[in-house]
């Protein structure tokens, strides 16, 4: 009985559902108890009802935002990975381009969103570019550090075997760098959601960021909260997809982390 309870308690999903339910109930009761108006803070039931009633509208805007996120993210994956490879392999690029890119990071990218609108217009382009700009750097940096931190002995091994450039890249260096790359991807996918929303705040006529802005300016509390809820789910879903792909593509990467956790649990 005791161990069964422990297993139940240790299940991350179960604890998450439990804590969210408790929070939701407390929230619902607080709103009723202090009779807070809906435009200020709607209760969870009102939010759920709103999501159900405005499903079509929310769905359309969600698709727009997801499209911006995915396009920007995929673009950043391709560019970040390729540029990371070039920088890791070329000492000249490492000294010049890399330093330059690092320096540009001190510009707060969100601040140039209005400029992007001026340059690229009102459509999807400025949003995609903003997502791209936010995602690109973590991917590129992690690709570079992954390729550069490959075990010396593995590189010597490639050389002793007489592997050419491409073989040593495909068979040793790139797979060895994959766990690093996925660290970058996980950071980036979270940034991607932020990038899309912020640029929709600045100028848009559709998307979740746009609905958020409009509904809150019209004091439509339940709708605003519905959008926030959906955004949270979109963020979690995208992050989970990246984590799942990591498990699928480089299952060896996480073993160390899991082993470490097991060991520390045993020791404590």
């Amino acid at each position: 009985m005791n161990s069964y309870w422990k297993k139940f308690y240790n299940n991350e999903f179960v604890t998450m559902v439990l804590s969210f339910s408790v929070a939701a109930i407390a929230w619902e009761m607080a709103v009723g108890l202090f009779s807070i108006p809906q435009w200020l803070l709607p209760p969870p039931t009102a939010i759920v009802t709103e999501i159900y009633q405005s499903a079509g509208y929310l769905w359309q805007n969600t698709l727009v935002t997801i499209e911006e996120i995915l396009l920007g993210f995929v673009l950043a994956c391709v560019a970040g990975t390729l540029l990371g490879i070039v920088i890791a392999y070329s000492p000249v690029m490492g000294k010049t381009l890399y330093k330059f890119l690092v320096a540009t990071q001190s510009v707060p990218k969100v601040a140039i969103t209005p400029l992007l609108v001026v340059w690229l217009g009102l459509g999807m382009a400025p949003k995609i570019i903003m997502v791209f700009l936010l995602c690109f750097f973590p991917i590129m940096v992690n690709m570079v550090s992954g390729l550069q931190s490959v075990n010396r002995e593995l590189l010597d091994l490639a050389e002793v075997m007489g592997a050419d450039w491409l073989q040593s890249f495909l068979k040793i260096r790139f797979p060895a760098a994959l766990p690093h790359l996925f660290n970058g991807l996980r950071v980036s996918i979270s940034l991607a959601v932020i990038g899309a929303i912020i640029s929709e705040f600045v100028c848009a006529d559709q998307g979740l960021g746009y609905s958020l802005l409009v509904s809150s300016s019209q004091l439509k509390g339940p709708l605003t909260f519905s959008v926030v809820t959906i955004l949270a789910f979109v963020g979690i879903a995208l992050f989970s997809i990246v984590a799942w792909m990591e498990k699928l593509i480089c299952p060896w990467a996480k073993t160390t982390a899991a082993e470490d956790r097991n060991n520390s649990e045993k020791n404590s």
Partner: protein
Amino acid sequence: MTTLLSLEGIKKTYWPASNQTITALGKIDLEVQDREFITIVGPSGCGKTTILKLISGVLKPTKGRILVEGIPLQNSHRQLLGMVFQQPALLPWRTVLDNVLLPCEVKGQDMHKARALAEELLGLVGLNNFINRNPRELSYGMQQRVSICRALISDPRILLMDEPFAALDAITRFEISRLLLEIWSVKKNTVLFVTHNIQEAVFLADRVVVMTPRPGRIASIVDVPLPRPRTEKHLYDPSFSSCAETIHQLLGLNAL
């Protein structure tokens, strides 16, 4: 006996910074006979790894030359080489079998034949039940055995081993040493084996190369007169002890 490998007046200087040089190897002259088992002992930092890296072609000597069967070392000689590193250096995304097959893939050999040979080698080192496992599921000693198989798969004329058993406990270490000698007696490779362990050096070798502290030179080469095949009995043989003592003194004197 023919000379397979000769190092002639090898010097190696590292340039870690523009205003700094480290002379790793003073002047090394060494002739290695075909099918000989050579062990190299010396204090830490005396350039043992550097010697192996020079022979494997990963590094170029600052002075002197390396000849393989009388021909200066060139890239095509990599076909003759197998190397075992101090760490197993296995690829965690490949199974045990695929790790062993890596050199054959790189060299574009007939994979069907290679696979059969890999399975045979893994059986020889007692890993037939682990062929499709992930290296992470293996103990350190087992991983090191896999890396030995990987070095042996291309049937190298010259086998370079850089303290391959350093991280193993005494029992596993002795077992693997025995295994290595067994394989060597069948395959008849030429082996250069670096170690910190005097007992191991004597037990394995035909000749033990004893080095001085940096800059590394050859202090002396000690012949081991013990017969083959070697067994644990030889560990208590008087000539074993006298060899070990000689080496001990050579190292001890140099440390002063």
